[in-house]
């Protein structure tokens, strides 16, 4: 096990290294020139060149990358071109909001997904089952900005149950969490449904029932825990899925996390911020997958780590 973890960690470092190189090259190959954005329209060519030199953007690409990597190894993500602030500080200040949103989304997708899947499995073939699976189908396929705006319109504008965007209270958290978790809820309800149907057919369930244990006890004592196991192992992978969703969800709801930071930086060609957020996201995805792999054998001993 420790050997496996060590090997996976080494792999993770290599993956991050690869991500950093690819992102770096892509960003610097853009025809957009961040220096011109900084210098403004009244700048002379000399000013532009002076700024380019100060930022080290006149160096050959490998050397620029070397400087960036060297800083990174010392915990320095560089400085934002436009805000002039340390990128690490910017990301760090926004990370709690993103983590909070992810926790909210995980709660939403588990509660919604498991409940829907359970009910659908028990009422298999009924109109309720079909209705729930239709909802889950919508969850899997609807774009998040559509879900977000619909939820905002119905629950915040029309019904007034929740504030229209914003941050700081529990009530602010509900709608963005639902939006981000809706996709996962769709997947989980399908997994839970098939998993439950599978488990309910197993011999031990029939044995338990024939022993005279009540239906509810069989269900929640034996069936559900076994059906949930494969789903729990998926949560780590969700972190990666969320990373792509937060950019949209945070923008729609005005949630001050790193997704919003990235979106603003992209619009302003603020390369150090884009690099920083990409690397942090990649790290989260890599760690999430590692976590999923490590948790899986704990839940299901049939899975062995090699």
């Amino acid at each position, binding site marked *: 096990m420790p050997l496996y973890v060590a090997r996976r960690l080494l792999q993770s470092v290599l993956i991050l290294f690869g991500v950093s190189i690819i992102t770096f090259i892509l960003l610097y190959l*853009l*025809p*957009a*020139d*961040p220096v*011109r*954005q*900084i*210098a*403004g*329209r*009244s*700048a*002379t*060519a*000399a*000013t*532009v060149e*002076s*700024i380019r030199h*100060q930022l080290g953007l006149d160096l050959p690409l490998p050397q620029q990358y070397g400087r960036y990597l060297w800083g990174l190894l010392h915990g320095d993500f560089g*400085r934002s071109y*436009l*805000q*002039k*602030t*340390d990128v690490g500080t*910017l990301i760090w*200040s*926004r990370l709690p*909001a993103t983590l909070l949103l992810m926790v909210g989304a995980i709660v939403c997708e588990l509660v919604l997904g498991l409940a829907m899947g359970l009910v659908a499995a028990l009422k298999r073939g009924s109109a309720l089952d079909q209705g729930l699976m239709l909802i889950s189908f919508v969850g899997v396929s609807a774009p998040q900005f559509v879900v977000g*705006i619909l939820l*905002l319109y119905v629950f*915040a*504008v029309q019904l007034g149950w929740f*504030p*229209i*965007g*914003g*941050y*700081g209270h529990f009530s602010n958290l509900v709608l963005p969490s639902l939006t981000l978790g809706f996709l996962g809820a769709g997947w989980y309800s399908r997994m839970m449904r098939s998993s439950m149907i599978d488990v309910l057919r197993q011999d031990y369930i029939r044995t338990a029932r024939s022993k005279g244990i009540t239906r509810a006890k069989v269900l929640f004592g034996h069936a559900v825990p076994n059906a949930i196991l494969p789903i729990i192992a998926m949560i780590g992978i969700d972190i990666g899925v969320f990373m792509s969703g937060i950019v949209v969800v*945070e*923008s*729609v*709801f*005005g*949630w*001050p*996390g790193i997704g*919003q*930071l990235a979106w*603003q930086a992209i*619009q*302003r*060609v603020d390369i150090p911020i884009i690099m920083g957020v990409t690397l942090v996201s990649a790290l989260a995805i890599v760690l999430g997958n590692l976590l999923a792999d490590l948790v899986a054998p704990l839940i299901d001993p049939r899975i062995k780590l090699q």
Partner: protein
Amino acid sequence: MRKSLMTGVALAALFAMSGGAALAVEPKQGGTMTATFKDDVSTLDPAIGYDWQNWSMIKSLFSRLMDYKPGTTELTPDLAESYSISPDGLTYTFKLRHGVKFHNGREMTATDVAYSYNRTVNPKTQSPGQGFFKSIAGYDDVAAGKATEMSGIKVVDPDTIAITLAKPDATFLQVVALNFAGVVAKEDVDKWGADYGHHPDGTGAFYLENWTLGQELVLKRNPDYYMKGVPYLDEIDFKIGAEPLTALLQLQKGEIDYAGDGIPPAKFLEVMNDPEQKKLVVQAPQLETSYLTIKTTMKPFDNLKVRQAVNMAINKERIVKIINGRADVANQPLPPGMPGYDKDYKGYSYDPEKAKALLKEANYDASQSFDLYVYNTDPNPRIAQAIQQDLAAVGMTVAIKSLDQANVIAAGSEPDQAPLVWSGGMAWIADFPDPSDFYGPILGCAGAVKGGWNWSLYCNKDIEAMAAKADAMVSPDQAQARADLWKQIFDKVQDDAPWVPVFNEERYTMHSARIAGDKSLFVDPVHVPVNYNYVYATDAQP
């Protein structure tokens, strides 16, 4: 000189509409205003900030030697109590107000003014406003990093500063009214270094109480502000993060007072068709022109007849309809309201038949296709399509390249790319209300370089000489002559047809009924977008 600014048609209209900015009863101080912006504020460093969002925040946090009367383009002394200009037009002597205090409590002196200007020009600051100070003697050495202090700036005594120019510059008083000339306290710049933009410390009407990155900025009234009785608001809360559509919903529900990113285009008609909502919208022309550039150095657009044909081929009225009529058709580079705007000028009228004839005369080869570059946000691609159709109707084939703003700007100045660029979304908005600002960077030779903003690469030496002459007319009694000269300059530019001026945008600001003030404050031509210092809260009034 200032008087001439008032002759603009649009400005006169603005005044008629608003009844002037003076208020019969002085509003009481108090109350809070809540505003929203989608994006976090990039910086509040006056030497760096250069966007729609931070422009008037910086105006409220910092002060400059000169400012403009609220809601107008009329210059007035601000940190300066008075000023005088030497007979040769080269030396400006400003007498400062005595006893003005920074938010940190220290008294501001002429040394701080000198420090602030030198700082903006210093290449280490990386200020986008550096170039505005180029007429000050000694600018070149500081801009090149060879010196740290401009030789033309002399601190005469703590309350007096004399600034000598290398050459006369009729716009100099406008330059010292720019944000980039905001006075900063050296000790705070030294203390915060690169983070100064998050810890601004000026002498302005408000001070920054708190900034939670990505969430909120809180501005509080400066109790020591040197203008008695203002600002009226006790506090302004800028909430960050709401999409324009979300912000509009919040405004409609009364949760906020002002949506900083404006009315989303998709909701515009809905808002304007609802009398209740329309009441909350303030509308005014802005000093802006949206245009199509034609690369004068690229075949076949080096032929004047082809450029004239493009001018006549485009149906501007239809384009204005595409944007729900939120603009007026333009026929010249200068927007109405700018001195030098020629209200009698007819321009090139829409005449596809004449355009076809001109193309025939120019032996235009209809088999070729050209790229039309456009910024990829709505409504710009739709406008580009309209241009594409208009040009196709006269036999010109154009392919649309819809790209990110930065990419369009980058291609714009390349001599072999972007023969046509639609300026929408990147269009020229005046830095200060003076016609020279619409010439040098976007139509003058200095801007016709790689990385410049003159995407036509238009450079006419005769016109360049006329512009230099106009810039040298600094005396206030030459103002009318100067405006007339600019009028001639832009008429001559139009003869060469480097652009198709298409429309002048109108500005629309929506605010809650709780926040009031003269209408002109909400569409202030200089304190863009809103003059926060003079709006007041109705619930704070007796």
